[in-house]
């Protein structure tokens, strides 16, 4: 009897120890997200002071650097990783055996001759202990769900870093184009002023050129703010502050590739890799586990075993017993039904999420295809066409058929096309990052993060006459 009791207790203790380390969680998340997590990702107190981060920031940044920095520094992501500890704690807790209850009774009688009577009583909730492995199983499913959730955050953070970086690149390029337009307008304004001073043109001409230049200055100021704003968005994602914000961008946005790289089995890939669906499956399993637990608890009589010892003067009197609560009236039907309903509801949501993910996959694909077409059209057709217009205007200017103002107008139209080309390029790379995030397992909004004011590309204000 005693030996068997010990065996049961040992078995239960073993089940309770089936928890994993944080490294185990991070390895799992790396596998799911396909994103490397540094071994000491959660150790650093302030990554900005970290020598390796400083090293990365010293050289001009590219999008991959931004992702690396974000994975290490993004506070929301770090919080999400730390929250894994909550579920891990619950697993640990679920594996713990109920504590035995011990009762000691000391009794003395009026008669001093009579010895002190000692009564020991120990009780152990056997049924609760027997169900511990099931509870551990449920908590482990919840932990698994949390790992998928955290992996999704990793993918999302990498996407946000990429999108914000592309936006910062675009903002920088847009500003450079706007400065060129401003230069041209300043030249046109100066020419008009000199022509007016020489008496060659009416005041209308110089007023028109001055107005155009001053408007362009305002537009340029907006683009300067847009550039600063896009850098700040990136700082928030990368977790940078203070003098760590003094970094530069390595290169302009890459040209669009020939093909837009859209996978064949798009929907299937998106469904298979989805961390949301995987997380929900784990939660479904956890609820199923709870249903089973609740049912088992319902029919399994609550058995408490106890041993007691009583010293009666000189002799110990030993005994044991068990109390059984008969599941006659309460067989946990209500709790079980509640869990079943929760399962069914979550199942509906699971199906809905799958439908949404399929749609999101097609949506991301459409965005990418369209952005690819537009970027190629701007890069390969529209900008060269505008450059050709400018070149021909220059020839006509050389031939004295048109004046300097027409030349500047043609240049502004070309620069306006270049602005639109930058926007299209940013949309392409953002859409591509969004599709990649989706195929790695996380839906992202896919909308361009946007520091674009839209004004620079407007023919009427920056590009027009």
């Amino acid at each position, binding site marked *: 009897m005693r030996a068997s009791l010990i065996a049961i207790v040992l078995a239960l203790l073993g089940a309770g120890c089936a928890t994993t380390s944080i490294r185990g969680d991070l390895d799992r998340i790396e596998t799911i997200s396909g994103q490397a997590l540094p071994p000491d990702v959660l150790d650093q107190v302030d990554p900005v002071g970290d020598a390796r981060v400083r090293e990365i920031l010293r050289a001009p940044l590219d999008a991959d650097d931004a992702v690396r920095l974000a994975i290490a520094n993004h506070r929301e992501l770090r919080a999400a990783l730390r929250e894994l500890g909550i579920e891990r704690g619950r697993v640990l807790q679920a594996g713990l055996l109920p504590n035995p209850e011990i009762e000691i009774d000391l009794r003395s009688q009026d008669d001093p001759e009579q010895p002190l009577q000692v009564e020991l009583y120990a009780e152990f909730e056997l049924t609760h202990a027997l169900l511990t492995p099931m509870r551990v199983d449920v908590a482990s499913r919840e932990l698994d769900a949390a790992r998928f959730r955290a992996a999704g955050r990793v993918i999302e953070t990498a996407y946000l870093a990429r999108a914000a970086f592309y936006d910062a690149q675009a903002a920088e390029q847009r500003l450079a184009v706007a400065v060129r337009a401003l230069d041209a307008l300043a030249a046109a304004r100066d020419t008009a002023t000199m*022509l007016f001073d020489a*008496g*060659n043109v009416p005041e209308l001409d110089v007023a028109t050129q001055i107005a155009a230049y001053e408007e362009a200055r305002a537009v340029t100021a907006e683009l300067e703010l847009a550039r600063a704003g896009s850098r700040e968005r990136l700082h928030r994602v990368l977790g940078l502050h203070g003098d760590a914000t003094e970094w530069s961008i390595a290169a302009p946005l890459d040209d669009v590739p020939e093909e837009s790289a859209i996978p064949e089995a798009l929907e299937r890939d998106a469904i298979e890799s989805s961390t949301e669906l995987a997380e929900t499956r784990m939660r479904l399993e956890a609820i199923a586990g709870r249903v089973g637990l609740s049912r088992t608890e319902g029919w399994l009589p609550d058995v408490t075993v106890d041993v007691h010892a009583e010293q009666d003067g000189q002799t110990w009197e030993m005994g044991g017993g068990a109390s059984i609560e008969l599941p006659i009236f309460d067989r946990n039907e209500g709790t079980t039904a509640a869990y079943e309903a929760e399962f069914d509801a979550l199942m509906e949501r699971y199906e809905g999420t799958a439908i949404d993910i399929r749609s999101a996959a097609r949506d991301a694909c459409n965005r990418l295809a369209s952005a690819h077409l537009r970027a190629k059209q701007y890069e390969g057709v529209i900008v060269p066409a505008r450059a050709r217009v400018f070149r021909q205007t220059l*020839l*006509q200017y050389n031939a*004295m058929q*048109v004046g300097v103002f027409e030349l500047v107008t043609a*240049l502004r139209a070309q620069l306006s096309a270049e602005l639109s080309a930058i926007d299209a390029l940013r949309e392409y790379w953002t859409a591509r990052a969004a599709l990649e995030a989706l195929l790695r397992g996380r839906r992202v909004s896919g909308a361009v993060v946007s520091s674009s004011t839209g004004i620079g590309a407007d023919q009427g204000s920056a590009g027009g006459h």
Partner: protein
Amino acid sequence: MDRRSFLRWSGAAAGAAVLTRAAQVSAQDAHAHAEASATAAAAVPTFERRPASRVAAPGGQPAVITPNGVSLPWTIRDGVKVGHLVAHELDHEFAPGMRARVWGYNGHTPGPTLEAVEGERIRVYVTNRLPEPTTVHWHGLILPNGMDGVSGLNQRPIPPGETWVYEFDLRHPGTFMYHSHYDEMTQIALGMAGMFIVHPRRPVGPRVDRDFVLMTHEWKLEVGARRPDPNAMNDFNVLTFNGKSYPGTEPLLVGVGERVRIRLGNLSPMDHHPIHLHGLNFVMTATDGGYVSQSAQYPETTVIVPVGSTRVIEFTPTEPGDWAMHCHMTHHVMTQMGHGLPPMVGVDTSTVDRRMSRVVPEYMSMGQTGMGGMGEMEMDIPPNSLPMRGARGPFSYIDMGGMFTVLKVRERPESADPNGWFEHPAGSVAGPADAARLRADGIDLE
């Protein structure tokens, strides 16, 4: 243009030209060296020496010369002069470097000069190879009404692909023209015109040694375009004598003391042309309406040739040299001048140049000291265009184009080279004033 920017553009390549040119240019025009060093954009064509004119009419009247053009060949059939005009589209060169698709007759615009004698009967076949109908109107000739060629009024138009025939007697001598009288606006604008000369049976006035035919015209050919715009009403930018803009115009080579006749006809769409001759004066002896009696003739140096008229002038040059002959409307001696740009005269653009070169490296301001020299600037311009172009002259660049030609008056015209320049007697060319001379003449520049 200013000198600084000019030098930037002419570059080292022109340097060699400076050296070779310098040997040929006379000492007086040191000022002109830099200008002459720039290679002129338009090549100057060379012209064959014309043989002595044959006699075309009684009294030794010489056959007319149509510079840059031809006369229509005739055959005689039963005493009738028979000719053939084919109306068609053709590729025409206004001057080297500027061509266009125009309409004309027998490969030319203006068409071949018709030349006959008073009293003759002519039969002209007209084949229409244009994409639309046409007619031929014999401008100034008095003939049967059914031969007058006004579409709808005197005849049905000649459909494309058909050959019609005109036949009539030449009752009056004179300087006439012919042109389309169907869709006149389009067809005349595209070049459907020519001259028609009827010599008198008996010479009128003094006998002439040379008899030239020049037809004026105006076109709108956008810089870089390859077909004139027949819809133009203003802003004609290519002005021609016999379909050519200078330097495409063939010079008129004449002898000192010769009596020279020039028959001018104008079928420009919109403009009259005051034709001015240098180095002589002339009298107008006839119009397309007939002869001007000697008592009514008066001396002139400029004759206005109205649209739809001919003017015949005669003169006897006494001063040898290279004499300009041109329309005196200044825009009519500018080829493809743009009119929509602000004038830059008097503007110091050096700071603008610096500023613009940051955004347009090829930019350069032009015209701040005037337009002179524009024609010789070596800049990228649209192909098939001669904006503001003239030609290199014996001293420096001649910055006129358009309706400009040279009357070359020579002591021995029969052996003179039509492409050569006049050799000036020593001391007869204007040059810089030397200080001693200025002092001697009391000119104080301080």
